[in-house]
């Protein structure tokens, strides 16, 4: 692998950048691999990378129907945090957070992980209770977190309307200072380049159409370019997981919904951190390019169209203007949608399936990006050993039968 550095950049500038190498090869698929990863998004590429790097399994293919990092990796609002309530989630996301913290150096690719802090605003007394509960759990789990009062919030977040006469006055916030944002495309490309360098075949423009089974055991995938054999197959296809499960002959507790996001035109820095509010339903950060990156809510219906309905955009912008009235005259540039695979407990499924040797990693819903390295890391370990990594084990499909849900939804339940 050609190493990247400031000096390298200078050297290449002397030859007018005519000698840069390809970031990854365009290989022809082999007949059989040790492991096939279906889905070349961030999670799939990370899985391939860690299989090769940490488990020495390099006879690996990532099969992607479109282009690398072209699904939710390319469409999310890039927030990274690990301040989850339940132990199982907190440990998984914190595992990811630790990997994020050295990822650019590990991959020799600047993923621009920027620990600007993630704030969750509290507007009601129940918000405060829930926040204390979460921050307290985070602290005892070794995850950083603070609960701020209204004055601290006003001091730390300029232009946030902290006055008492708003519809839902802000009465506090939690902050995870190690949280932040990263450059989404770079994450996919960084993992892809590093995986390729370790020998992983990245096979783009190849759709997986089904799974071949022998005696009920998965032995490979049928693709638009023919059959490819594999000892183990890991499916990491986010919004399309339900569809892939159907191809494999079972169902998942997953529904795919549109999730929308939008950006403003680029403006000079005004929002320095990530600010989220569940009560007014909006969250915002500002990219290094200057765009305000704004996340909208999930649409209520199932949808694979990578677009949602306009009222969701309206509500989100209303929320942003309510939080930051000074942004009213700033303009929205572009909106888009992703397909999020939601589970009943808002936690992922990292699991064996009814088909031996076929593993699924899905159900990340609206929160997958932040887990990318951690998800890939534990899934790689599970695929390598054929047994689920301890951090992944609680996220088995079985929990929807036994009742052992990890209810990140319920933890935010509001009723009085």
């Amino acid at each position, binding site marked *: 692998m050609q190493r990247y550095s400031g000096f390298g950049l200078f050297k290449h500038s002397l030859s007018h950048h005519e000698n840069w190498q390809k970031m990854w090869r365009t290989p022809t698929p082999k007949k059989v691999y040790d492991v096939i990863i279906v889905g070349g998004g961030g999670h799939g590429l990370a899985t391939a990378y860690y299989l090769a790097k940490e488990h020495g399994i390099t006879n690996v293919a990532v099969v992607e129907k479109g282009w690398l990092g072209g699904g939710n990796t390319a469409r999310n609002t890039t927030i990274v945090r690990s301040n989850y309530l339940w132990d199982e989630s907190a440990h998984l996301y914190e595992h990811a957070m630790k990997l994020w913290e050295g990822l*650019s150096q590990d991959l020799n690719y600047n993923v*621009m992980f920027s620990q600007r802090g993630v704030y969750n605003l509290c*507007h009601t007394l129940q918000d405060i209770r829930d926040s204390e509960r979460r921050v307290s759990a985070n602290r005892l789990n070794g995850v950083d977190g603070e609960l701020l009062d209204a004055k601290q919030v006003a001091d730390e977040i300029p232009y946030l309307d902290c006055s008492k006469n*708003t519809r839902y006055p802000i009465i506090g916030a939690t902050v995870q200072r190690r949280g932040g944002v990263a450059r989404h*495309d770079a994450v996919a490309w960084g993992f892809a380049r590093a995986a390729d360098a370790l020998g992983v075949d990245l096979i783009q423009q190849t759709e997986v159409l089904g799974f071949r089974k022998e005696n009920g055991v998965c032995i490979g995938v049928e693709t638009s370019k023919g059959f490819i054999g594999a000892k183990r197959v890991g499916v990491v296809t986010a919004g399309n997981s339900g569809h892939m499960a159907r191809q494999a002959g079972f169902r998942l507790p997953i529904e795919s919904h549109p999730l929308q996001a939008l950006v403003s035109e680029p403006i000079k*820095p005004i929002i320095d951190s990530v600010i989220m509010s569940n009560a007014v339903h909006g969250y915002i950060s500002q990219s290094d390019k200057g765009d305000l990156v704004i996340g909208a809510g999930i649409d209520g219906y199932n949808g694979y169209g990578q677009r949602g309905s306009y009222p969701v955009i309206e509500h989100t912008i209303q929320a942003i203007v309510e939080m930051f009235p000074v942004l*009213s*005259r700033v303009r929205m540039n572009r*909106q888009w949608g992703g397909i999020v695979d939601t589970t009943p407990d808002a936690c992922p499924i990292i699991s064996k399936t009814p088909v031996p040797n076929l593993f699924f990693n899905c159900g990340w819903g609206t929160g997958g990006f932040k887990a990318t390295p951690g998800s890939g890391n534990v899934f790689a370990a599970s695929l390598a050993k054929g047994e689920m990594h301890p951090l992944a084990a609680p996220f088995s499909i079985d929990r929807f039968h036994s009742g052992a849900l990890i209810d990140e939804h319920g933890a935010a339940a509001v009723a009085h």
Partner: protein
Amino acid sequence: MSQTHRLPNGGRVDRSKVLTFTFNGQQYKGYEGDSLAAALLANGVDVIGRSFKYSRPRGIYAAGAEEPNAVLQIGATEATQIPNVRATQQALYQGLVATSTNGWPNVNNDVMGILGKVGGKLMPPGFYYKTFMYPQSFWMTYEKYIRKAAGLGRSPTQNDPDTYDYMNHHCDVLIVGAGPAGLAAALAAARSGARVIVADEQEEFGGSLLDSRESLDGKPAMEWVGKVIAELKELPSVTLLPRATVNGYHDHNFLTIHERLTDHLGDRAPIGQVRQRIHRVRAKRVVLATGACERPLVYGNNDVPGNMLAGAVSTYVRRYGVAPGKKMVLSTNNDHAYRVALDWLDAGQQVVAVADARSNPRGALVEAARAKGIRILTSSAVIETRGSKHVTGARVAAIDLKSLSVASPGEWLECDLVATSGGYSPVVHLASHLGGKPTWREDILGFVPGEAPQKRVCVGGINGVYGLGDSLADGFEGGVRAASEAGFKAVEGVLPKALNQLQEATLALFHVPHEKGTARAPKQFVDLQNDVTAAAIELATREGFESVEHVKRYTALGFGTDQGKLGNVNGLAIAARSLNVTIPQMGTTMFRPNYTPVTFGAVAGRHCGHIFEPVRYTALQAWHVKQGAEFEDVGQWKRPWYFPRNGEDLHAAVKRECQAVRDSVGILDASTLGKIDIQGPDAREFLNRIYTNAWTKLDVGKARYGLMCKEDGMVFDDGVTACLADNHFVMTTTTGGAARVLQWLEIYQQTEWPELKVYFTSVTDHYATMTLSGPNSRKLLSEVTDIDLDREAFPFMTWKEGLVGGVPARVFRISFTGELSYEVNIQADYAMGVLEKIVEAGKQYNLTPYGTETMHVLRAEKGFIIVGQDTDGSMTPDDLNMGWCVGRTKPFSWLGWRGMNREDCVRDQRKQLVGLKPVDPKQWLPEGAQLVFDPKQAIPMTMVGHVTSSYAHNSLGYSFAMGVVKGGLKRIGERVFSPQADGSVIEAEIVSSVFFDPKGDRQNI
């Protein structure tokens, strides 16, 4: 000198109305009817900004929505700042203040420009991915400077003084674009009687006819436009929206239009007027007449001010009477661009030469130019230009198309304007918002709309129909089709005649070669706003980015505020060539709303500030305010939280309120609780299925508490339901759960058990509910009611009807505080009068209003739960120690029964609700705090539960809490610990959750 570049006559500006404006601190003059860009050009302003990455000087390049450079900061005051306004789309008004968005100390002498020159080479696409990585901790520092340098304009730092709103429309035909095709379509559709909306982004209707040389029926084309507008204005079913950009084409023919009502009038909207409005349109049929957008050729130093789109030059000359130069060189690959040469001559300026990449052009406009003696260099193109802050020359050379190389050294021509035209791209954005992939047409070298399920018709330029006569006909036919598909009978119409001129095909040239090769040639910009060069695109493909989305993302091509309107096709062509594939094989990226940027405030509409979301009040709100209540948000309701007196804080007030209730009597507004009237012969059976406990034996006149679970066995609401008659019940729900519970009942009745005869009607708003609670509540109530309150006559958990304060009331004897309590329900219209009478009578009992906080404390002292505070969607009734409320022998498998018997729900060591008593009675356990058995263990600790409710100030005299603890019910008497953020540890004893009056004597006093 003022307006140095204004032509002595011509244009659609009103020269009698002189407007003064300011750019970068200097005052200039323009005319009414000018765009800001036109006025700047009229004053000879060259450099209007600095480029994003290399800080190169940039000038006005285009005349419309595609402008990449002239992106300015507008606003005369801090509160009215608008970032990133395209000068080409901003009408000039008196007093307009504009500044450049980049450049220090100013745009003409920018320090960053030097850095750009030196460092530019170090900034190939993606350079930031390849560097700034070491040492790890430095990224945030690097990033700080990157962020400062990025961004265009700035946000205001004061609140917007303007208002915005929406308007919803439903029409038969929405016509997008009021150029020739759109207007013809509008005529056809409107004459049929259909409801028609015509929206156009420009200041006035006419589209390409606003600066056209062409005539219709022998008269200037704009005369026809005037007649059409006049006719349309007369029709009541037609809505005309100029200054209104259709920005998004959403599912099921829902489109959004961004109308700018006052942006042409001044810095802010005149008092009482709305600045901008979003029209939300549902159209039976949509006619897309969005036209085509000229694209430039890509050549060396094509960004130096004085390089302009050919069509834009015509616009400035003909529409605004402005000549952005004197000596022009035109570089083209098509016929249509020759009109700029003719316009330029007509304006009395000099055409130095036309470089035509075609070998033998013979179209009508070409011949007209030839006839005027214009020098035409065939098989040639402008290879590069020179000039630092303005073009001083262009090198024209012969090019070999097959090898895409330079065939001759060419010659440097002196000029101050290089007009460029690389053909036309149909404006397919809206047509593609729903994912319909545009199709490449080799004959017109452009993408046209692909197949899509939407009910729409595309007419004119968007279809690649460019001739004026053809475009009118196409538009009219499209209008007829749209109207008839929407159910209207079209009326015949005669269209004006346009001259049919011979027009030859455009040549497939996008990227003009340079003898040094792309990587070493002077920068050839593809996307001017994002400083994306041809070399960058080639580099991206060299590095393995083969998908168009990859190329775009790696180079930032098309990611600007212009969304790549000029550069996308050129970028595709360069990438395709570099990868040795065709343009259609390369494909296009997705088009997403918005077509042009939309003000956040406009999208938010009126839903801001005090009407951001509904606020719900009870009938007694005015009284609460008079009593000085502090309010708590509960769902959409504002509920009195506590009633401070004489400057009390929350704790003092709550302590006093608690004591008043325990000692005498208090009054609570309980109107917000959900109330559902249930009638029907199967009402009882329905309750049996929906509640966890049994309802078969509840007699008329009695009430019972019930828990509701979802199918998973987890508690999701609770409340008291009373039997009013054999087939008649009234259910109460939590405040926040009211709507949810009604939905819950409906979905099961309508979809699961339609055979059960039962109806549900919300009566939450109908009744106001006042709760009198405390040992003196009976005495007090007896003074204002005719109901027999004797404890035998009116026992606990029953209800009675009678007069309270002279008003018919239904009174429930139920208690949430543990004290003797009466809930008085009154038709809400009369509640205030009744309250006043109770308050008057209550004076002698120190009747004390109390809020939600005191209510929470008092119920917690009794161990009563609050769903949503003591539960979180993962608690079964048994977890709450409420197994007494579970009908284990009910015949029907009620909602929740199966779920709560799943493997994980019946295991040992589930978290169970218990009381917690801090060992130090003064210590308060924060609500939400996590609990451990061993506070000395290392992190990560094993957490065993958390505090759900906790009250230091109460009627007990010591701090207490409720919480959930693993296996807690078997651990009564044991200790738990709560490690705090400051390192301290609070120790608490696990106790019964009933702290007060465990036998329940007081409610029966």
